[in-house]
């Protein structure tokens, strides 16, 4: 089971790495924020898997905290930093 937990954690980390493309690429600021948000929930899953793999229950508290706080940055973005004129070049 240890092997499964670590494999899945590695897989999710790979998922995050691939998702970075969207932060780099954009095109809109919302897309970047969205991708960063994905990192948050995937990191929660990785932390829970590592909790199982290492047996250190303190990691569960880290996951809980991340779940609570992942929203704060997104809220800061929506409330403050989102430019009013967004370049609408959403074509792929």
């Amino acid at each position, binding site marked *: 089971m240890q092997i499964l937990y670590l494999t899945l954690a590695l*897989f999710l980390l790979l998922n995050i790495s*691939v*998702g970075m493309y969207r932060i780099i690429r954009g095109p809109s600021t919302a897309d970047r924020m969205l991708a960063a*948000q*994905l990192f948050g*929930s995937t990191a929660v899953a990785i932390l829970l898997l590592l909790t199982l793999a290492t047996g250190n*229950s303190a990691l569960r508290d880290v996951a*809980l905290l991340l779940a609570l706080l992942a929203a704060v940055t*997104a809220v800061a973005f929506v409330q403050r930093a989102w430019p009013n004129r*967004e370049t609408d070049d959403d074509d792929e």
Partner: protein
Amino acid sequence: MTMSDYLSATLLITGAIFFLAGTLGLLRFPDVYTRLHALTKADNVGLGLTIAGVAVQAESWAVVGKLLLIWVLVLLAGASVAHLIARGAQHRGIHLWKR
């Protein structure tokens, strides 16, 4: 491996597949709304399945409660943030993708 190990492994692997689906959606979908849709839903289900898989292995009910709390919080935050971003995008005149 016991019965609960198999159950847990199945749930965890299914969860990881949902995460993969979310990431694929993030990369391949054409506009911010569809990406939002793919990501928020797939990831929340993926995390829910992962949490279910972890909860099967939990040593006490208190731990199950904490895991459930984590999921509820992520659902709450994810849904709210998705709404805020979608509304903001619409407000700023980002167009919906049309074929």
